């Protein structure tokens, strides 16, 4: 497996923020909110994080792999196809759709 870029599995991500906080170049950001799940009549409804946005800025990423290592839920993984070139730096900020 070549380390050309990183893929996100949004179903596996629990929005735990570990990768965001460990990334040395501060190039990951995410937004999430909480929702109740389970039996609405339960006395203490369970709360889960729901991922709204997840962005990696490939213009800042140095491909160190710390985020892949640190993710406890295997939501991040190396993928072999490189990030396509863009004419505009904003095009290097990939959201959930591009990171899938």
């Amino acid at each position: 497996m070549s380390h050309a870029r990183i893929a996100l599995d949004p179903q596996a991500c629990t929005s735990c923020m570990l990768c965001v906080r460990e990334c040395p170049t501060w190039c990951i950001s995410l937004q999430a909110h909480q929702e109740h799940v389970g039996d609405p009549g339960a006395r203490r409804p369970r709360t889960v994080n729901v991922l709204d946005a997840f962005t990696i800025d490939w213009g800042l990423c140095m491909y160190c792999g710390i985020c892949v290592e640190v993710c406890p839920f295997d939501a991040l993984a190396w993928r072999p196809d490189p990030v396509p070139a863009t004419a505009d730096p904003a095009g290097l900020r990939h959201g959930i759709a591009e990171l899938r």
Partner: protein
Amino acid sequence: MRCAELAVPADRWRATCAELAGAGHTMLDLLTCIDDPAAGRIAVLVHLVDVPGRRRVLLRTEVAREDPVLDSIVAVLPGAAWHEREAHEMFGVRFAGNPDLRPLLTTGDMGFPLRRTTPLPARLQAAWPGTADPADRPPPAPPGAGAPRTAARPRTRLAPPGVPAEWSPPTPEEAGAP
């Protein structure tokens, strides 16, 4: 390929490099420094490889942070010239005997960028994304529910790892925002 690790006093630096090169470690892979402000020292490291012999050595020495001077190893391993030039620019180590220590990237007015005590302007200007917390956006209270019985758990303000507290940009409250 196993890597032997070796530490020598600064006055043995050039002689040890010469001995290693003479013993076949002729490929200079890396020369760099590690700043240790707490100990007041800067470590200088060189990674030498004996390619046909499939051996490598990580040689280390230390110099005082106040007056970091070390013998240049350019006479032994000419490829070290550029690395020493870079280490001089980034860490302020002077390599006695290196003929060309001109800076490569900086203009010399921002200190030594890779010393741990040099603030990184980009870190001061950028907002750390790690302060966001999903718990800041809790689910709406069910209709008819009274005030939550437990107060929100106070959370300590997280700081970006590796950034000294005195570098952190002020919070809106600290900055006096309304």
